[in-house]
């Protein structure tokens, strides 16, 4: 299909100048590379236990208190549960926190009793890692309010 009538044959091809696009993209890439957070740090939110609220506004939902002793045994105590429940213990595994048993116990207890509050009471030699692991397990068992009691 040719052009008829005109003296100059103008090409219908439009050559788009990509250089400005290239410049914009280069600037974008530089900016994003400089500002992107490569190592994303997360957080485990908790509240300090005991004494945060007055007694009048305190409800008493079923709660579980976890005491970690110096040998990394974890003792579960229960408050405001339907029916009286005795303490339960998850024994340590070679002086280390038995995390898998602990997770299973927390999960099964939470499913049975629907705990909303958990309070963690570590001993002086409990490592920060163990505390986070226990709190992580409690959060994973849908316990909304996890508290940490200082020594």
């Amino acid at each position: 299909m040719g052009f008829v009538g005109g003296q100059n044959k103008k090409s219908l091809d439009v050559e788009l100048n990509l250089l400005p696009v290239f410049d914009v993209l280069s600037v974008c890439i530089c900016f994003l590379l400089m500002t992107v957070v490569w190592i994303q740090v997360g957080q485990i939110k908790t509240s300090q236990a005991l004494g945060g609220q007055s007694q009048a506004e305190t409800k008493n939902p079923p709660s579980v208190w976890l005491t970690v002793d110096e040998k990394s045994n974890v003792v579960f105590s229960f408050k405001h549960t339907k029916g009286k429940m005795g303490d339960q213990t998850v024994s340590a595994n070679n002086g280390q926190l038995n995390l898998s048993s602990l997770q299973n116990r927390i999960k099964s207890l939470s499913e049975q009793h629907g705990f909303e509050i958990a309070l963690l009471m570590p001993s002086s030699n409990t490592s920060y890692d163990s505390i986070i692991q226990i709190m992580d397990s409690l959060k994973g068992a849908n316990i909304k309010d996890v508290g940490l009691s200082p020594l």
Partner: protein
Amino acid sequence: MSSQSVLKNHSLRGPIASQGAIKSKGGGMKKHNMVFSLNLTALIDAFSILVIFLLSNYSGDAQNVNLSKHIQLPNATQTEMMTMGTVVKIEGNRIFVDEKEVKLENLIGKLIEAKKSKEQDTDDVKNSLIIQADRQLDFALLSPVIRAGGSAGFNQYKFAAMPQTKK
């Protein structure tokens, strides 16, 4: 349709190449065109993909936790995105509040100052104490910081942890 295309009879050459201004002056039989137009389309495609990837990983929230090489954070699966607040870093026996070293006996005062400096921020930022400590740290060293935070009026404690995917 494509055989009748307008483009068929026209070469897709750049403006310089179309003029044919530069030709090699070799004595050979064939005259090679020394001008070549760089095809930027593939490069633009690659850049576009890179920009999209970086934008998808981009987080608009500022992260105010500077990771120290002396601190190895614990891993956790139930983490939330880090928010703003007063950052307390524990490195061995040294305590830092917003990157400034403080002594344990002055900690409550410094935390109160830090909280006052965030008066104009939201309640969530003002009342949050972000604790950053090594995974091996004993609770005996962490407990005074929690107590000091409570005394200074913080009611939200946020423990820094490395997000881990659920197994």
